[in-house]
């Protein structure tokens, strides 16, 4: 199985309240292990998945948000955030975690692969993907 496809994970749900975000992350990690080109898109309430300083102590849920920060180590190269969704919730890029990425072979690195994009770009990126997983 040598095929490499462009996988886009479209995350539309808040991190807690339902299990979609958490179980989506599990698929992301497996897809990366299959050496696919993995990108993530956060839209609608999905933008909350990347917010800084999540504290789940009061709701008795595991705080899985630190995992997002490790995605660069799993060779996830792009994490896009829909600008309109962010703005509609009174958030800015400063409210979101930063995710570093480094290519171990070439030592090329990017300080933060989280990128806020406009709706036109969102549509373009989804259209360019071979597979869109929607969670």
């Amino acid at each position: 199985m040598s095929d490499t496809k462009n996988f886009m994970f479209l995350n539309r749900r808040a991190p807690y309240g339902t299990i979609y975000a958490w179980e989506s992350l599990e698929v992301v990690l497996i897809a990366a292990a299959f050496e696919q080109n993995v990108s993530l898109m956060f839209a609608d309430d999905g933008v909350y998945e990347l917010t800084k300083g999540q504290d789940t102590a009061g709701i008795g849920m595991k705080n899985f948000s630190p995992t997002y920060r490790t995605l660069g180590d799993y060779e996830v190269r792009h994490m896009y955030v829909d600008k309109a969704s962010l703005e509609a919730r009174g958030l800015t890029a400063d409210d979101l975690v930063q995710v570093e990425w480094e290519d171990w072979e070439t030592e090329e690195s990017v300080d933060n692969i989280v990128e806020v994009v406009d709706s036109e770009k969102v549509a373009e990126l989804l259209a360019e993907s071979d597979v869109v997983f929607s969670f």
Partner: protein
Amino acid sequence: MKFSIQVNEGPYQHQASDSAYQFTKAALEKGHECFRVFFYHDGVLNGTRLTTPPQDDRNVVNNWTELAEKYDLDLVVCVAAAQRRGIVDDGEAERNGKDATNIAPRFRISGLGQLVEAAIQSERLVVFGD
């Protein structure tokens, strides 16, 4: 065309499994191929044989089993999602010390790699859910 199907919701609460079933059945009847049906999130609940709907209602689980028998479909239930929700086959019962199994005929429990493989191998992955 070669399809794979992902079902993200359980039976009855949500129409996703019914829609996925209708879509898969129609595609197969038209001569298309279905590489795999993968059940994720609460979708794993489509794989219990203990489901007993009222007699005048459709049996979502049996529908899948019968379709799989007719077309030799590969019905895969995600193991991690199944463990959380109590879907158990012989292997899982033994590994986790459970006193019963409930996996429906023609379903099998396996890993998320099966979903990723289905996405790679198929021309279209069609996701049913919210």
